[in-house]
């Protein structure tokens, strides 16, 4: 239920516990959201350092920094942490902070389960990382952990399994919480067709997490049973099926990549209209595209398995190509939103535009790869590494950065420096393309992914050097971001309630919002209630 009038409590103020105790025991969705963001960026840092170590190793032929086993651990942990402990939770973190605000609610539906699903994340993440202390090191079978490689290996692999089950449980609990919150706690007038696009994207993400994550959990339990209980799920010598793992993993894994991108689509669809001074073009089309992609994502998994020769090529190729239709609809909606708008090139807008450009490249890569003939040529080469990073880094991480600049004033009451924001954007955009564009060509020249070394006479050395240089430019851009955040947090809170002239309800409350979110909730008559408010009462707004 939403509060439409100021509240007063009759009780005397209770003594406040220590601030650390308050944060550790909080059930406030805003504080939990901030904890999610801090935890996610910490894992982003760790996984980013792993990436830099890999790029340093690959800068020239010959092994310089790490052993081959060490390299295997690096790419396994890099992928696992980036996907399960950075991108997924950072989107759920923004969701936690923003969904109740955007729908005009007081909090999530189950605040204590919300706290639980947050605290499971560092536990799961550290469990996976603790493999580094185990004999034989951490998990080294890649983030996809294909059997039979994942059936071998030491305790690090088991810790990886246990950690992922914990993180998966956190996702399922969050998903339930989001769905119930969105279906049950909307403010009066906030119908489903007036729901902000970001909230829709979190609803779709949650549906995917709810239905796909348990499939991974089941697969992980089979793997664990094989490794520790003596079962034979993936062991053909005793009647098992080694391809079963790939089916189970990708039945989860492909919906997973949409869990990783839908939130960013929602973010960009919120930001583009605000900085174009226009409503989102074709709101129903965007929602329909989200829904179609959510549904289709369960039918494409075996396009990851074309080279096994054991899957139905025409079916999985066709369903994969089908997804490009609603995705194309999204692109046209975004471009039409920009068309003839009054564009304001603030940092959030730059990152959103960068998202469109880079995600387009990643998306077109995907359409190409959906053809089995093409897939046979580039499977498990650096082409795939380029594709996944254009989608998840060029796509989602640019979206996350757009969100960080856009909502930073709401969360902290302070606007990030625009100048440093420009530096951050251009360095990251440049570094990103330097790192990942050459990987397309490396893949076409046959360089396989997940190798620690290559021969000097293969013609791969120069492009690898470019990629390594680019990765350090990305690192510098992130240092600029960190400096920006650190400097800004030392300034006083001066941000207005609505510094960007936003559309959605979070801009109708102070920056940062009070514990109870809203002193007064505006009437909701469209999917742009705060824009409506500005039009109806311009004088009051200024006062």
């Amino acid at each position, binding site marked *: *239920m939403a*509060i439409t009038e100021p*509240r007063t409590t009759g009780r005397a103020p209770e003594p406040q516990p220590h601030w650390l105790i308050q944060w550790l025991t909080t*059930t406030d969705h805003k504080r939990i959201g901030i904890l999610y963001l801090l935890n996610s960026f910490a894992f982003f840092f760790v996984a980013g350092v792993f990436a830099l170590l890999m790029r340093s190793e690959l800068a020239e032929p010959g092994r310089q920094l790490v052993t081959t086993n060490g390299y295997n651990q690096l790419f396994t942990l890099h992928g696992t942490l980036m996907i399960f402990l950075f991108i997924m939770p950072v989107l759920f973190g923004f969701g936690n902070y923003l969904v109740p605000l955007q729908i005009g*609610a*007081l*909090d*999530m*539906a*189950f*605040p*204590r389960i919300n706290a639980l699903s947050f605290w499971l994340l560092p536990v799961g993440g550290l469990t996976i990382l603790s493999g580094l202390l185990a004999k034989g090191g951490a998990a080294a079978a890649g983030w996809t952990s294909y059997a039979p490689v994942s059936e071998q290996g030491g305790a690090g692999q088991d810790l990886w399994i246990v950690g992922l089950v914990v993180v998966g449980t956190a996702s*399922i609990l969050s*998903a*339930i*919480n989001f*769905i*119930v919150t969105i*279906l*049950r*706690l909307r403010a009066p007038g906030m119908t489903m067709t007036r729901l902000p696009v970001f909230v829709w994207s979190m609803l779709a993400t949650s549906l995917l997490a*709810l*239905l*796909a*994550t*348990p*499939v991974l*959990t*089941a*697969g992980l*339990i*089979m793997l664990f*049973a*094989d490794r520790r*209980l*003596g*079962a*034979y*799920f993936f*062991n*053909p010598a*005793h*009647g*098992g*099926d080694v391809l*079963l793992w790939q*089916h*189970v993993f990708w*039945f989860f894994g492909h919906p997973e990549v949409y869990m990783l991108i839908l939130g960013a689509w929602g973010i960009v669809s919120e930001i583009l209209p605000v900085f174009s001074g226009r409503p989102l073009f074709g709101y129903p089309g965007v929602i329909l595209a989200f829904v179609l992609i959510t549904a289709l994502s369960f039918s494409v998994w075996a396009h990851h398995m074309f080279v096994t020769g054991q899957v139905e090529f025409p079916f999985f190729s066709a369903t994969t190509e089908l997804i490009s239709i609603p995705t194309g609809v999204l692109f046209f909606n975004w471009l039409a939103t920009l068309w003839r708008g009054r564009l304001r090139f603030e940092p959030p807008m730059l990152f959103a535009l960068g998202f469109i450009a880079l995600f387009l490249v990643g998306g077109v890569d995907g359409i190409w790869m959906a053809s089995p003939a093409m897939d046979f040529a580039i499977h498990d080469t650096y082409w795939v590494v380029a594709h996944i990073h254009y989608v998840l880094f060029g796509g989602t991480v640019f979206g996350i950065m757009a969100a960080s600049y856009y909502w930073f004033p709401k969360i902290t009451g302070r606007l990030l420096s625009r100048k440093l924001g420009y530096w951050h954007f251009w360095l990251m955009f440049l570094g990103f393309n330097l790192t990942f564009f050459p990987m397309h060509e490396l893949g076409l020249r046959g360089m396989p992914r997940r190798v620690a070394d290559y021969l000097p006479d293969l013609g791969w050395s120069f492009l690898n050097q470019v990629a390594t240089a680019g990765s350090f430019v990305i690192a510098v851009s992130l240092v600029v971001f960190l400096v920006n955040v650190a400097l800004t947090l030392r300034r006083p809170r001066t941000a207005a309630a609505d510094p960007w002239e936003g559309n959605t309800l979070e801009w109708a409350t102070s920056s940062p919002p009070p514990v*109870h979110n809203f002193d007064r909730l505006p009437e909701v008559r469209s999917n742009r209630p705060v824009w409506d408010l500005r039009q109806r009462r311009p004088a009051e707004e200024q006062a």
Partner: protein
Amino acid sequence: MTALDLTRDERTVRRTSGPVLGMVLFVASEAMFFATFFGAYFTIYSVNPVWPPAGFPRLEPGLAAILTAVLVTSSVTLQLGVRAIRRDRTRTLLRWLGLTILLGVCFLGLQLYDYSQLGFGVRDGIFGSLFYVMTGLHMAHVFGGVVFLVLVLVQGLGGQLSDASHDSLEAGAIYWHFVDVVWICLFTTFYLAGLS
């Protein structure tokens, strides 16, 4: 205003309460979890020329039929309890709830006994792996359900359940029926399929 008040206010305007909807969603997630194992079962079944593979007996449905009867009965008794509380008959509810928990414990005991009579283990081949992992995970879910229902019973004994406020029981019942349905699928797959 706490979140508890929030859901309570919601219930007055909408039919399905937050906790019950939450449980429906959780059960949907659990359904995907068990569906994955059934998918694995039938995939492995399809790649093996002989089923059950050599060295495994065809399972006798006798004791398992009793297990099925126990669990289905427990679903009925639990639903009778739900019906009682909807008419605000707390004492009747407590009796049905107690009986349901008892049947759940019986199921667990009987299944452990069944395990001891089978004569094969998880390491004896793929059929053993599938059988013990799938029925074992189900057993864990029954155990979880018993714990849940005991907590609801404690609530009821403390006078916290009424026709206006018994979400925990409604949610527990949805979960319990789901676990029952999963058992019927397991029973059909392992004990009945292939019987001529």
